[in-house]
């Protein structure tokens, strides 16, 4: 959660999700100077900095399959992508059709939206017997 107080001040109340402890972290940035409190370890600092700069997430979803034994193929980004691109990524993935078969780990789309991440299959889909 981000609150922009003035142009130059940003305050964020974060919950670190790197480990189960779930520290409550407060971040305050003013004129490019970042202050982080509440983290119990350096990983939490890194997490908060990423959340401030450009939060990233793994996206998991499904894409439609043609001639498969199932209608959907589950997929994921093979590395975290900027959170702000998630909706655009979903739009792309809703509109593509994948021809069966597919193996686990096969690349479906390469370097999507120039993020450096690939969309990979997380399931094995066979060709429909017809």
């Amino acid at each position, binding site marked *: 959660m981000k609150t922009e107080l003035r142009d130059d001040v940003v305050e964020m109340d974060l919950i670190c999700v790197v480990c*189960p402890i779930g520290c409550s972290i407060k971040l305050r940035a003013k004129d490019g100077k970042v202050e982080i409190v509440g983290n119990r370890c350096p990983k939490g600092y890194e997490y908060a900095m990423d959340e401030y700069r450009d939060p990233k997430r793994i996206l998991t979803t499904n894409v439609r399959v043609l001639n498969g034994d199932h209608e959907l193929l589950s997929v994921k980004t093979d590395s975290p992508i900027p959170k702000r691109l998630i909706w655009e990524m979903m739009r792309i993935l809703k509109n593509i059709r994948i021809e069966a078969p597919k193996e686990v780990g096969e690349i479906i789309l390469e370097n999507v939206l120039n993020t450096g991440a690939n969309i990979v299959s997380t399931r094995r889909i066979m060709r429909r017997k017809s």
Partner: protein
Amino acid sequence: MKKEKVDVLVVGGGAGGIAGAISASRYGVKTLLIEREDRVGGVLNQCIHNGFGVLVYGEELTGPEFLFKLLEESKGDFEVRSGETVLRILKDEKVVITVSKRGITCYEVGALVVATGARERPFSTLMIPGPRVSGIYTAGVVQKMVNIYNRLPGKKAMVLGSGDIGLIMARRLKLEGVDVLGVIEIKDEVGGSLRNFVQCLRDFEIPLLTKHTISKVHGNGRIKGVTVVEVDENFKPIDGSGKFFEIDTLVVSVGLIPQNQILEGLVEFDPINGGPVVDDLQRTNIEWIFSAGNSIAIHDLVDFVYEEGVVAGRNAARLALGERLPRRKLKLVRGKNIGVMVPNYLTGDENRVKMYMRVRKTMEGGELRVQGGRVRKYNFKVRPGQMLDVVLDVGRLSFPTGERIESCEVEFHEDRASR
């Protein structure tokens, strides 16, 4: 009716059952896995999100990927029969009866591992007033519709219950373009993990309504909306707090219940876990029946289910090979603040025993103690929504000398200083 002999029969092809079959087959015994659906995997098939396997495989996988790794591990060591359902267990005969398209089969077994998973608690058990309408689904059903069958339940939804499954489904529906108005939680904090709270609700700006519940369902044929009320500390609705939300879909995620029809009337059950009483060999009170996974108690991590499966399979194989397994020696009794707890007995067979438990309330920190001895200190918040796992060093448990001890208490001692 066909008759067959197997050393270890495993019922249920989810993570627990597959781990059990892998582990048993490593002992060279004839192992057979029976799954009633037409493919193995259980809930892993529909859990396309990531968060599986960090402990077992050292990386964060999606459900289907975890299943794939599990099956890779087991290449051909045991037979799988899917589309076959276990109907009955004959205790004295050591016989298991199944049905499939191929007909009825009687298996004479050396040992049995039951890993039949859990079912969802239905909405009707909440006794919320209103007409019987369509458009009310449990979260697992919606998950299967959306992730396997490519069907959306509706356009405007609310989720009742903020456990992990509710949070994950709120995000899934939102990503699929459904307008998710909020997640309703009767308690004063989120039920699932903080991580899921952040990544499923906060990330997608889905409101969490804590201390709220549904007081009435509206609609005629199809659900048209719900009245959401605030509750007091005794979970009683506060007068005048009701608010109407127009929705066409209600996703209900109010808990899982271990599923054990085939064991009912046969083995002893633990009323709090909701599944069979087991010892550290994962053995029930019937010597040749073992159990693992969500059919014993509800687990949030597949890794723990896997670990239990490994123990169950190993000991089932030992028994099938003719080994005499030790008897139960020490009963573990729930003390202060302990809810779900596995196992219930120690045999002394293993010196280091993995225990899984849930605390009864949220605490800022404290110490897990077994009969006076410290087991583990927690200097962070512990919540009922998160299962704790500890390794019990059985050899080092200290008991008063001279006395014969038959049971010992497990308690979570709350740290008041840290409040």
